[in-house]
C-alpha cells in the first residue's frame, strides 16, 4: 500500500456502507415539504372521482337514479355497475382467488361499499353530486358474527357463489364458508393431547383493526388516447403486480400500462390491495379521455379498504408436568368480510399462520383455519406483518402464558425450557417451516437481565401484597414475549400472488465517473430504501452510498418485482441488490486485472478497489474501473458496467426478538401506564442501526395502539362504530411509551449479506408483550384470558369480574 492510500477502516467508513447509521437521503425533501405524494399531483384537465357508498351492511339495490347528479354543472359522468358490466369490470379478481364487486351489482354486502362513482371537474362538485345520487335499498338480514354466519339458516351473503361447492382453496361446506386450510398432523396431535399430563385450552381473539397510514389510498389514472398508453400514479405497495393485474382485467397490453408509485405516506399493508377506486378511476379516464384523480377520505379508508386480523383462535397446548411442551392444536375462525381479499401468497389462504409454533420446539402440531364471509369490509391485509404472522405470534405467546398458569410455572422459565436450541437450526417445525437460524436463549437471557426480571417479579409480589392490604389500587404487569417472525416471501417454488412469483430484483448502472443508479422492484413507504439499499451496494461495489441513487416505483424503468410488504424488501430485493453488485464486481475484477496487466485471479477485492495480490501498492479503484469500462477498449469484454439480478430466495428468513413490557394498571379506571418497554431484535446483519431503531419505535407504537385500544368495531346491524380518528385509536406523543432497544446478531445463513428484515418484527412482537402485561397484572387474581383491545373499559371489566372493586 502506498502512502497515499487511506487505511482500510477509513475507506470503509467513507463508503457509508453496511452498519453505518447513515442519515436518510429522503429526508431532505420531506423536511422541506417537497415530498411528492399522489394527491400532490396535478395534471392538465384532471377530473375528480368520488364514491356513493352504501349506508347499509346488507341490502338489495332496487334502483339507482343519477339524473339529478348528472344535471349538476361540472359533473362529467356517474358510473354504476351497469356501466361497467359491458366491459366486464363490474367485478374484479381479488388477490386471494375470490372475486369482488367494483361497484355494487344488485346488492351491497358491507357498510361503505362502493355503489356509484361520480366524476366531476372539481372535488367540491363531485362531493355535491354524491349527495344527489338517489339509491333505493331493501334491507336484508345482517351477519357480523363469523360463528353465526355458519349456522345452517344464516342469510346467504354471496349469491354469486350459489351452488359453488369449491373455491380457490378447496371445498366449501356452507354458503358463507370460504375455505378450510389444514397443516400438520391431526391424528398424531390429538393422540398427544389426549394423553398429556397437562393440557391448557383457550380461545384467543385477535380483533379486527386497520393499518391506517396517515396518507389514505388514492390514484390518478391517465389514459393517453393518442399513444394508447395508460399511466396510473397511485398508492401502490406493489406497482408491478398492479400493472399485470390491470393488464389482465382491462385487456390493455402490459407494455401500454405504466404504474408509478410516488412517495407513499405510510402503507403498513393498506396499500397492497387493488381497490374499486383504482378500477373506477381507470375506467373513468378511459371513458372521458382525461386524467381522473381518486383520493379516499379517512372515513372511507377505515370503512372500506384493508382491514386486518379478525382471527378467532381456539388453542390447545399440552405439556409434561415439568413444563416440556408436547403438542399444539389450533383452530381458527377467520372473518374475511364480504369478499376474500386477503393479500396472501396464493398457496397460503391463512398466510404464514402456520408459524404459530413460534420459538418453541413443539414435536407435533395441527392447524385448521376456516375462512368465513360476513357483512363486513373485505381485506385481511398484513398490517405491518408478514401474512398473519402477528396473529400467530399473539396466539402462541398467549398460549404459553395460559400454559404457564396451568402449570403454575413462571412464564419466562417455561419459555427458556422450550426454546428451539441454537444447535437445532436449521430447524424443521411441526407445521412445515424450516427455520434458517436462531439463538433464542442468548437473546432471552440478555433481555431478562436487562430488565432485572427477578427484581421485577419481587416488586410485583410486594405490589400484590400492598394491593391486598388496601395500600394501593395499582397493579404491576410484566409482559413477556419471545417471537419468531417469518418474512421475505418468498421462494417462487411455493410463493406467488395471482401466479406472480415472489422474487424481487435490482438493476444497477455504474456511470463512467464512478457514481451509480440502482433500480428495484420494491417501493419504500417510509422504510428508507433510498438510503439503505445504497448502503448494501456501497459495501458490495466500493462506491460511496452518497454517490448511488436508488429509484423505485416506476414500472417503465424499474425491473419487475413484487413490491414492499411482509418485510420482504431487505430479504428479497436487498439480496438482489447484493447479487447484482457482485455481478458488477465480477466484471470490474476482469477490467482491473486487464488494467493492471495481471491474471483475473491475481487481483483481490479491498473495500473500494482491486489490488494485485501481494502487491497492494498496485490497485485500481472502482471509480477508475468504472471510467475504463466505458472509455477503454478491453479485449473480450463489452463496454459498460451494468448488472441486473432477479433473486429467488432459497428460503424465508426468521427474525426473532425478546420484548418485555412493564405496565402499571389502575384497577379503578382501567387506565394504564407503560413504565418500561424493552425491545431486543435479532434481524441478522444490521444495515443501518438508526433506521432499525426507528422501525422498532414505530412498529411497537402500532402494536401499542392495537393492543391497548385500536379496533374496527361494528354494531349488530353492521354499522362501523370506529370511522374517524376520534374513535379509531391512534396514540399521540402523549400516550405513546418510551422504548429501549437492544439487539443480538444471528445472520441468515442463506441471505447474501445475512440480513433478515426488521420492519414488522416490532408490531408482531409488541402486541403480545403489551397484552401479556395486562394479563400478567391480573394473574395473581385469577385471570387467564381476556380479549384485546385492552382499553379502559375492558380492563375495568376484567377487574370488575375478578371482584376487585369490592
Amino acid at each position, binding site marked *: 500500500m502506498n502512502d497515499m492510500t487511506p487505511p482500510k477502516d477509513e475507506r470503509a467508513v467513507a463508503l457509508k456502507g453496511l452498519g453505518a447509521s447513515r442519515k436518510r437521503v429522503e429526508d431532505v425533501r420531506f423536511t422541506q415539504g417537497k415530498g411528492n405524494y399522489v394527491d400532490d399531483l396535478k395534471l392538465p384537465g384532471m377530473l375528480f372521482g368520488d364514491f356513493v357508498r352504501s349506508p347499509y351492511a346488507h341490502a338489495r339495490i332496487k334502483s339507482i337514479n343519477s339524473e339529478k347528479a348528472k344535471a349538476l354543472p361540472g359533473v362529467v359522468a356517474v358510473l354504476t355497475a351497469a356501466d361497467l358490466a359491458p366491459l366486464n369490470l363490474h367485478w374484479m379478481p381479488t388477490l386471494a382467488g375470490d372475486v369482488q364487486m367494483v361497484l355494487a351489482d344488485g346488492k351491497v354486502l358491507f357498510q361503505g361499499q362502493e355503489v356509484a362513482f361520480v366524476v366531476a371537474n372539481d372535488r367540491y362538485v363531485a362531493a355535491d353530486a354524491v349527495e344527489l345520487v338517489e339509491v333505493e335499498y331493501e334491507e336484508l338480514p345482517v351477519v357480523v358474527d363469523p360463528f353465526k354466519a355458519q349456522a345452517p339458516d344464516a342469510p346467504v351473503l354471496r349469491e354469486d357463489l350459489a351452488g359453488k361447492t369449491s373455491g380457490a382453496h378447496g371445498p366449501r361446506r356452507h354458503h358463507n364458508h370460504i375455505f378450510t386450510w389444514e397443516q400438520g398432523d391431526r391424528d398424531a396431535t390429538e393422540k398427544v393431547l389426549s394423553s398429556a399430563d397437562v393440557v391448557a385450552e383457550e380461545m384467543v381473539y385477535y380483533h379486527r383493526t386497520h393499518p391506517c397510514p396517515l396518507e389514505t389510498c388514492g390514484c390518478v389514472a391517465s389514459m393517453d388516447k393518442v399513444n394508447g398508453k395508460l399511466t396510473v400514479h397511485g398508492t401502490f405497495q406493489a406497482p408491478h403486480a398492479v400493472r399485470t393485474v390491470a393488464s389482465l382485467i382491462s385487456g390493455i397490453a402490459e407494455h401500454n400500462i405504466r404504474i408509478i408509485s410516488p412517495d407513499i405516506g405510510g402503507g403498513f399493508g393498506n396499500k397492497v390491495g387493488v381497490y374499486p377506486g383504482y378500477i373506477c378511476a381507470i375506467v373513468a379516464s378511459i371513458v372521458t379521455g382525461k386524467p381522473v384523480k381518486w383520493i379516499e377520505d*379517512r*372515513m372511507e379508508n377505515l370503512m372500506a379498504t384493508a382491514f386486518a386480523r379478525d382471527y378467532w383462535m381456539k388453542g390447545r397446548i399440552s405439556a409434561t408436568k415439568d413444563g416440556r411442551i408436547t403438542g399444539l392444536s389450533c383452530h381458527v375462525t377467520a372473518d374475511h368480510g364480504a369478499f376474500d381479499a386477503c393479500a396472501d401468497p396464493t398457496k397460503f389462504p391463512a398466510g404464514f399462520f402456520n408459524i404459530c409454533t413460534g420459538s418453541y420446539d413443539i414435536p407435533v402440531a395441527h392447524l385448521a383455519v376456516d375462512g368465513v364471509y360476513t357483512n363486513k369490509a373485505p381485506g385481511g391485509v398484513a398490517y405491518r406483518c408478514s401474512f398473519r404472522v402477528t396473529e400467530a405470534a399473539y396466539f402462541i405467546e398467549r398460549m404459553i402464558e395460559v400454559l404457564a398458569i396451568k402449570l403454575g410455572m413462571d412464564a419466562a422459565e417455561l419459555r427458556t425450557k422450550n426454546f428451539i436450541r441454537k444447535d437445532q437450526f436449521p430447524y424443521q417445525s411441526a407445521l412445515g417451516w424450516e427455520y434458517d437460524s436462531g439463538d433464542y436463549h442468548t437473546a432471552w437471557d440478555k433481555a431478562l437481565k436487562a430488565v432485572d426480571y427477578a427484581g421485577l417479579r419481587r416488586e410485583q409480589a410486594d405490589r400484590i401484597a400492598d394491593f391486598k392490604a388496601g395500600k394501593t389500587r395499582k397493579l404491576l404487569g410484566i409482559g413477556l414475549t419471545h417471537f419468531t417472525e417469518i418474512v421475505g416471501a418468498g421462494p417462487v417454488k411455493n410463493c406467488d400472488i395471482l401466479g406472480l412469483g415472489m422474487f424481487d430484483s435490482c438493476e444497477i448502472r455504474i456511470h463512467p465517473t464512478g457514481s451509480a443508479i440502482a433500480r428495484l422492484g420494491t417501493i419504500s413507504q417510509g422504510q428508507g430504501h433510498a438510503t439503505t439499499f445504497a448502503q448494501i451496494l456501497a459495501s458490495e461495489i466500493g462506491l460511496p452510498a452518497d454517490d448511488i441513487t436508488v429509484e423505485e416505483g416506476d414500472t417503465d424503468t424499474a425491473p419487475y418485482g413484487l413490491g414492499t410488504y411482509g418485510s420482504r424488501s431487505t430479504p428479497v430485493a436487498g439480496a438482489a441488490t447484493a447479487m447484482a453488485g457482485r455481478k458488477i464486481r465480477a466484471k470490474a475484477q476482469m477490467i482491473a486485472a486487464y488494467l493492471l496487466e495481471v491474471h483475473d485471479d491475481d487481483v483481490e477485492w479491498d473495500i473500494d478497489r482491486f489490488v494485485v495480490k501481494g502487491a497492494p501498492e498496485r490497485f485500481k479503484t472502482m471509480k477508475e474501473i468504472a471510467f475504463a469500462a466505458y472509455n477503454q477498449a478491453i479485449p473480450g469484454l463489452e463496454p459498460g458496467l451494468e448488472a441486473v439480478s432477479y433473486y429467488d430466495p432459497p428460503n424465508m428468513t426468521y427474525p426473532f426478538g425478546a420484548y418485555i413490557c412493564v405496565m402499571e394498571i389502575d384497577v*379503578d379506571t382501567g387506565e394504564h401506564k407503560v413504565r418500561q418497554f424493552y425491545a431486543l431484535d435479532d434481524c441478522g446483519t444490521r444495515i443501518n442501526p438508526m433506521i432499525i431503531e426507528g422501525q422498532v419505535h414505530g412498529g411497537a407504537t402500532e402494536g401499542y395502539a392495537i393492543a391497548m385500544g385500536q379496533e374496527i368495531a361494528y354494531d349488530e346491524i353492521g354499522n362501523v362504530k370506529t370511522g374517524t380518528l376520534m374513535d379509531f*385509536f391512534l396514540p399521540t406523543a402523549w*400516550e405513546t411509551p418510551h422504548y429501549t432497544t437492544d439487539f443480538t446478531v444471528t445472520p441468515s445463513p442463506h441471505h447474501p449479506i445475512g440480513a433478515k428484515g426488521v420492519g414488522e418484527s416490532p408490531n408482531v412482537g409488541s402486541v403480545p408483550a403489551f397484552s401479556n402485561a395486562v394479563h400478567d397484572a391480573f394473574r395473581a387474581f385469577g385471570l387467564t384470558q381476556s380479549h384485546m383491545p385492552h382499553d*379502559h373499559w375492558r380492563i*375495568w*371489566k376484567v377487574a370488575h369480574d375478578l371482584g376487585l*372493586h369490592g
Partner: protein
Amino acid sequence: MIPAPFEYHRPDSVEAAVKLLSDFGEDARVVAGGHSLIPMMKLRMTDFGHLIDLQAIDALKGIRIDGRRITIGAMTTQHEIIHHAGLATAAPILAEAAGQIADPQVRYMGTLGGNVANGDPGNDMPGVMQCLDATFHLNGPGGSRVVKARDFYEAAYFTARAEDEILTAVSFDTPAGGQAYVKQKRKIGDYATAAAAVVIARSGGRCTAASIAMTNLADTPVWCEEAGAALAGTDLSAAAIEAAVGAMDRAIDPQSDNRGPAEFKRHAAAVVLRRAIAAAAARA
C-alpha cells in the same frame, strides 16, 4: 369530506351579527373557532345557507377581572384562557379544564363561547360553568338577557339560547376555595369518558360549601346540588364523600358507547369525582 355550499358573513358588531341571525333565521349558524361545526359540515351532518363568523367582533373577546367578578368574552380561546395570568390566580379550574380539551391546535381556535353554547354534552366547559354557577350573557333582537349556566342546557344540542341570539360572554364570581377538574379520556383529543368539576370551600378543616358538576355523563352537563350539599358542613370524611358520590350517581344518566358501557361510566364517574374532591380539598 367537503362542506355543502353556504354564504359567509363576517359582521364586526354584535348588533350586526344578531341582525343577520334574525334575517336568516333557521338558515343561519354562527361560527366561533369552528372546530366542532366545520367537521360536522364536512360530514354533511348539518345543513344551512348562511355562516356568520364572529371573529371580527372585538366586543366578544377578552378576559376581565373586576374585583371578584370575572367576565370572559365568548370569543376568548382556550389557549388564551390557559395562558392568562390573572385567571390562573382567580379561577385556576378554567386553565385546568381548558388544558384537557382537544389538542393544542384546536385550543388555539376553540373558544369558550363555542364550547359552552353548542350544547354538545361532550364539551368540558359547560360542566365547569355550572360548577362555578356562571351566568351566560345572550344578545338577541330584543336586547340582552342572562341565563344561568345551570338553567341553560335542555338536551344534547338544545339550549336556552334562542336561534336569533348570540352568546356574548360568561361571567362568574371568583370561586371561593379549592378547585379541580379531573377528566378520564381515552387519549388526547377525546371527549371525557367521565369528568368532574369540583369547588370546595373549607374553613378550619371543615367543608363550608361545595359545588359539583359532571361532564359527558348525560345528555347535558349535570350539576348535582345534592352532591355538593352532602359535603357541605362535613369534615370531608369518607362517608361524606361517598354520600356525595351516591348523590352524583343518582343524578347522571350515562349511555353506552365506544368509551364503554354505562355501568363502567358510572364507576369512572365515581372515581373521577373522588379524585376531584380530594384535589380540590387539598387546594382549598
